[in-house]
């Protein structure tokens, strides 16, 4: 169907306005609260692993002594996930949070299974490597989300 010159001009103007008037967002906007929240979890995980290493082999290393750490870290992560969910295009952020959450759960199950013995120092080293890579990945992506947006 042929459009009249006037309608065609109006259509072109509408499309141009639609394209030029908006800014494309392929990723969720940068959220400082989310970054601060994950920074706190990273700090707590690092402090916990250092403590677990220091008390390894003593009664203080037993799982039951550290239940509050897991509850706090996993609870905080769930709240951050809820926060991320409300933003469009936040799948990659959520995926990072979920990955950290799965490794926290692995650490917890391992600790629970170890009972009074606590986590072995050489296992703590593996956990530290895994978490450090995960937090570095999250912060690197977040730094890019913050830049020029």
């Amino acid at each position, binding site marked *: 169907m042929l459009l009249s010159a006037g309608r065609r001009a109006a259509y072109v*103007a509408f499309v*141009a*306005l639609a*394209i*030029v*008037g*908006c*800014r*494309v*967002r*392929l*990723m969720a906007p940068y959220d400082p609260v989310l970054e601060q929240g994950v920074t706190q979890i990273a700090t707590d995980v690092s402090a916990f692993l250092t403590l677990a290493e220091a008390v390894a082999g003593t009664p203080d290393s037993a799982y039951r002594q550290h239940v509050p750490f897991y509850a706090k870290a996993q609870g905080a992560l769930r709240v951050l996930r809820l926060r991320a969910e409300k933003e469009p295009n936040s799948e*990659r*952020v959520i*995926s*990072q949070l979920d*990955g*950290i959450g*799965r*490794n926290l759960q*692995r*650490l917890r199950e*391992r600790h629970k299974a170890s009972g009074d013995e606590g986590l072995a120092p*050489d*296992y703590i*080293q*593996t*956990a530290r*490597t*895994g*978490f*450090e*890579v*995960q937090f*570095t*990945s*999250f912060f*690197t*992506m977040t730094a*890019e*989300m913050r*830049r*020029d*947006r």
Partner: protein
Amino acid sequence: MALDVEKLVKDMANAAAQALATKWPKARSFAEPQIRKLADEITRIEALLAARKITADDASDRIAMLEEAFQSIMGAAEGIAVLEVERAVNAVLAAMRAPVEKALGIKLA
């Protein structure tokens, strides 16, 4: 046979490069040092297993944790690449803005 950490780093980086295709050059500077950390740890786990200091189940459990971390590297690398595309698209749109404003005779918000 003991793991060759250099080959492991290379294999993991090649797998990442293939999976990320054109996005890899941008992600490389961030991803490669992280991949090396994982490869070093995998090599250490392999040595513990070879020395029978840990069981196969234990090693498998630890590797699962590191695989999860590898997924984080890949996800972040992909996110960084998507942000690059977003910047490119917005740069094109910004470049179009002045001529469109001129042609339409209006100032866009």
